[in-house]
């Protein structure tokens, strides 16, 4: 068997596997496009008879998704901004030095990274109630997500900073810049890509966050899409085409971003997560 034939066969096999693996995603979109009766047909149809494109604007209107998506965006943007501003500096310091204190700091950061949100939410809820932060529910969720996700950001961005040679910063110092100036004009521009990838990953995470939003936000008009989707799925629902339409609208921007940037995201993820 020639090398080319072998490669072709492998590619076909891998494509088949990918098709099987990504089938749930396909099924989400297809179900959304089916009519109520076609959805429950046995055997199920793998291509809709008459694609119901109008379901998307309909569900969007029906569930007031613009508000849900807006809230998700506000929460995700706020979290990313807070994490990027605070986490970038911390990652830089943790990358620049190598001593006992840095090891202790890294260890603490890794420890905080592992605390499950559903276990931390009880004390956070009580503390936020006591301090009155809960009166601003979206801010409360942003703070909670920032604390939860910052360690992950730090781990990724620290790997980026480690790849910026120390001499470049030293050269800038000798060239007459201050530490702060050298950080701003030399180190940050060189670490920009890594920071961006980490920020995108955090944004995706925060955009889909559920536990904190569900627990901290009572007002429907402030809830993000994840909570909205959860409320849509009652225990004995039979509106699956609408639910899948909701899920499609919610998830498509994330998927599109990911597919566009996947090479960068994957390399950013792999450079940091195991180091």
């Amino acid at each position, binding site marked *: 068997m020639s090398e080319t034939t072998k490669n072709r066969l492998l590619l076909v096999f891998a494509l088949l596997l990918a098709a099987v693996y990504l089938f749930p995603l396909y099924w989400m979109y297809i179900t959304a496009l089916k009519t109520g009766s076609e959805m429950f047909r046995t055997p199920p149809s793998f291509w809709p008879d008459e694609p119901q494109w109008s379901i998307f604007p309909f569900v969007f209107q029906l569930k007031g998704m613009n508000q849900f998506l807006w809230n998700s965006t506000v929460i995700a943007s706020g979290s990313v901004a807070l994490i990027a501003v605070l986490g970038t500096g911390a990652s830089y310091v943790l990358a620049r030095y190598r001593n006992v204190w840095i090891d202790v700091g890294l260890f603490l950061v890794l420890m905080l990274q592992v605390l499950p949100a559903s276990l931390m939410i009880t004390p956070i809820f009580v503390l936020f109630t006591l301090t009155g932060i809960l009166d601003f529910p979206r801010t409360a969720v942003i703070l909670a997500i920032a604390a939860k996700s910052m360690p992950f950001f730090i781990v990724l961005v620290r790997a980026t900073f480690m790849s910026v040679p120390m*001499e470049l910063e030293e050269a800038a110092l000798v060239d007459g810049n201050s530490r702060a100036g050298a950080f701003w004009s030399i180190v940050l521009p060189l670490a920009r890509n890594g920071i961006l990838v980490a920020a995108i990953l955090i944004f995706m995470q925060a955009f889909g966050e559920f536990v904190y939003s569900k627990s901290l936000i009572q007002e429907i008009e402030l809830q993000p899409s994840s909570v909205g989707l959860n409320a849509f799925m009652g225990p004995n629902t039979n509106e699956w085409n609408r639910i899948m339409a909701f899920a499609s609208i919610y998830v498509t921007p994330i998927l599109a971003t990911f597919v566009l940037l996947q090479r960068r995201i994957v390399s950013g993820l792999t450079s940091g997560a195991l180091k």
Partner: protein
Amino acid sequence: MTKQIEFSGVNKHYGAYHALKDINLSIDKGSFVALVGPSGCGKSTLLRSLAGLEKITGGDISIAGEVVTTLPPRRRDVAMVFQSYALYPHMTVEENLTYSLRVHGVSKAERKKAAAEVAVTTGLTGLLHRYPRELSGGQRQRVAMSRAIIRNPKAFLFDEPLSNLDAALRVHMRKEIRALHDRLGATSVYVTHDQIEAMTMADHVVVLRAGVIEQQGRPLDLYDKPANKFVAGFIGSPAMNFLPATVVEGGSVTVDLGNGPFSLTIPVAAPVGAKVLIGIRPEHLTLTASGEGRFDAVVSFAESTGSTTFVTTATTPELMVVETGRRLVATGDRAGLAFSDASVHVFDAETEQRL
């Protein structure tokens, strides 16, 4: 001569590790000083302390009469060329060159003018709008140099700037850096592990070992009168031969090179019975017919580069002889070794200091 740079009683500790031990060194304005020594000797630490990139833990450093010990790098007005060149990869050559001017608030027009001027002297015209990744190793080296020159600083610091270049380019850049130094009338401090670089480029060589200055002086003084065994062995290539010997009466010594003791008539200023090391450079030993030299030895190895012959003897320790031209000797031949009294260095075997 005015002193441009002074180290007085400089110490540097990294935790328990004592990297620089009470360094005193003054550097004249306009001179080219090389700091040389094996890796880990503290030469780079000393240079980085001068630049302000390392904080010293004791003593003082002054530049042009001003004590700079506690000042950050940017207030010291020195320029540095790094081993890795440290060119800013996200800036063009021009932006790299003028970065320091930009930091100091020089206008854009003036920056452009300065970059163009420097580019002419270092042959970078035409490359100003390239990025560092688009340059060859030699060109990057030039950019690193130009970035230092453009500022007219109080001192130029070089941290092994030639070690990433190939041999031919290295020899060429040696001359170029020295010529540049002379033209600018600058004060330069140059760190290298390569003693040939130090000897050929510098006015003043400082030999460091384990954080201590072993000797400093003009290059040929170090070659002619090494202060101790370390400097004697470090300066000169191939390294100096050391013959363990015992002083006997009548101005001579007994030497044992593993084949039984024999005596040599060498005047040594040491008491009878003292253990000494007789140092003779390979280029000061000459081969003669057996029995016609000061002593005989068997050749264990001979190699020739065409212009020079390197002969190793089957003795303990081995001796190295360097002869110009070609000598037809082969392994196993017995030869005599000759040298003049003037070329002999004597060191105390215990303290390794020159006697």
